[in-house]
């Protein structure tokens, strides 16, 4: 059971800061993508991958005993890629190829292109269902693996996840935890203005989930919730993580949903990096240069071998 010491928290916060820098460095030159949610979920990703909650082996992505992380709101994959690259699943040089022709790092996660990506997602809702399938299959195989499915709050306006919630509860999938990025932001506005979700935690409870509401930037609360999720028996867990879209970059935090799917200009990126304490002038070259080098260096479109 991972415990949060002050030393570990300091270390994790530094890791999260670096992941956020990598997100900006990936997205700004790519010229398209989703920075808001990627930054908002950086603390959760840090705790999962660096806080001891995910049992995994970056050198053996197909390891049967591994825990699974499924990113159902696949559009915030830059933060997933940052975490996977930092953990050593693939060379960090791949970051600069994001969204370019021939890249391993697609605009939305593709399991057959990126080591460490457990399911291809992007079209909203599907990842939660797929994660449930993994949880049921792992239980069937008698393995004590845990499946973490991350999703957006706006994503839950789709009907499909609620089918999965019903089934997860019915089948008592206690090895499944859903982490909802509750940032109250989606493309057209706040979730409550576009299609209201509240009373949101009550809905999850009514669907049979052990439901925990936390501040998604408070490491103590994140650790407590994740520890509780791993110990909950007889039902799945939902962690509703209240987060701030664009967390760590002041002008993004201030503009909320507007940074859902827009990348910063070079000047804005410089400001963002300054906010994050990165060395100035460290933005990589633009997308066209990256595309060319990507083609030369990383043109390996074949599927990574997966066990099972």
């Amino acid at each position, binding site marked *: 059971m991972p415990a949060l010491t002050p030393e570990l928290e300091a270390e994790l916060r530094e890791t999260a800061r670096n992941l956020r820098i990598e997100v900006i460095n990936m997205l700004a030159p790519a010229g398209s993508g989703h920075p808001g949610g990627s930054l908002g979920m950086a603390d959760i990703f840090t705790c999962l991958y660096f806080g001891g909650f995910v049992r995994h082996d970056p050198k053996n992505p197909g390891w*049967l005993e591994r825990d699974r992380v*499924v990113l159902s709101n696949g559009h915030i994959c830059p933060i997933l890629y940052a975490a996977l690259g930092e953990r050593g699943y693939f060379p960090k040089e791949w970051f600069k190829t994001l969204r370019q022709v021939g890249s391993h790092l697609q605009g939305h996660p*593709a*399991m*057959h292109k990126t080591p460490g990506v*457990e*399911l*291809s*997602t*992007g*079209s909203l809702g*599907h990842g939660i*269902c*797929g*994660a*449930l*399938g*993994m*949880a*049921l*299959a*792992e239980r*069937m*195989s008698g393995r004590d693996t845990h499946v973490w499915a991350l999703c957006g709050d706006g994503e839950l306006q789709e009907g*499909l996840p609620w*089918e*999965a919630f*019903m*089934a997860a509860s*019915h*089948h008592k999938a206690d090895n499944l935890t859903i982490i909802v990025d509750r940032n109250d932001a989606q493309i057209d506005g706040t979730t409550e203005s576009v299609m209201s979700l509240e009373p949101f935690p009550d809905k999850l409870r009514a669907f049979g989930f052990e439901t925990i509401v936390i501040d998604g930037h408070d490491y103590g609360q994140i650790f407590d919730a994740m520890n509780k999720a791993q110990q909950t028996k007889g039902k799945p867990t939902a962690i509703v993580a209240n987060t701030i879209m664009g967390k760590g970059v002041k002008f993004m935090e201030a503009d909320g949903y507007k940074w859902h799917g827009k990348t910063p200009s070079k000047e804005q990126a410089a400001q963002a990096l300054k906010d994050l304490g990165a060395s100035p002038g460290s933005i990589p070259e633009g997308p066209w240069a990256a595309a060319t080098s990507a083609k030369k260096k990383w043109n390996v479109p074949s*599927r990574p071998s*997966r*066990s*099972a």
Partner: protein
Amino acid sequence: MRATRDAFGKALLELGKENPDVVALTADLGGSVKTDDFAKAYPKRFFQMGIAEANMVDVAAGMSTAGKIPFATTFAMFGTGRAWESVRNTIGYSGLNVKIACTHSGLSVGEDGASHQSLEDIALMRVIPGMTVVVPADYAAAFDLTKRVAAHKGPVYLRLGRPKVRDTYKDGEKFEIGKAKILREGKDVAILAVGPQVAFAMEAVELLAKEGISATVADYFTVKPLDEVTLKRLAETHRAIVTAEEHNVIGGLGGAVAEALARIKPTPMRFVGTQDTFGESGDPELLWKKYGVDAAGIVSAAKSALR
């Protein structure tokens, strides 16, 4: 006469014994899609997913990533229609080893009518890159092909039917995915059929012979990948090709054959299928007759093609 769905249920039960990784899921239709025997014998490997087909298909996808060989079963309308995007994005995109096994395909659903008669499912599945599409003609074919489908690595759509249909093959007949079976050799026209229309094609051969027309019959049970080697030979040795299926003439076997022939050897063709229309309620045999997908329909298409 026996139903392909019954053969599927029997083969699935045997697969349960043969391969511990085989898993079955259903969406409140276990009795209809014939997963009940499997469920009784292997309760831990059977998942009732309720009336929620898109979720069932995604769950099957997740299971396949953990090494299982899931058969997601429901009616063709729901497994390929309602759940299409789950099949496309979660399974097809990454080539996951999931079997979409659907009964109640085509007009032969019968009395339930057009809302439940999928006449577009072959097209919907065929258009997904990497998807294999298998349409057994009868009981023996469905039994063996269910086994082949389980052994095949990658996503497969297995199209099965509700009613009892004429037996074309003897029990024990073996099939190979991707390789058409020539059931009768003729020289004027080649009839390429899938599903119950294979038996109708065999009847049509006799009727055509009475009029002095010599016809070949090929069971094209693998609609994708299409057996183009056999197709090329048939096109080169016959004056015309007729396709037959209980599916819209747009996008099904006929579409697949036409696409291939346009490239390999343009050949006069006729399409036996529903002519871009929905079905209706009624007895399957009468519906096949009314919509021209029976032996008489094939005879008239063959004569038209040779004219």
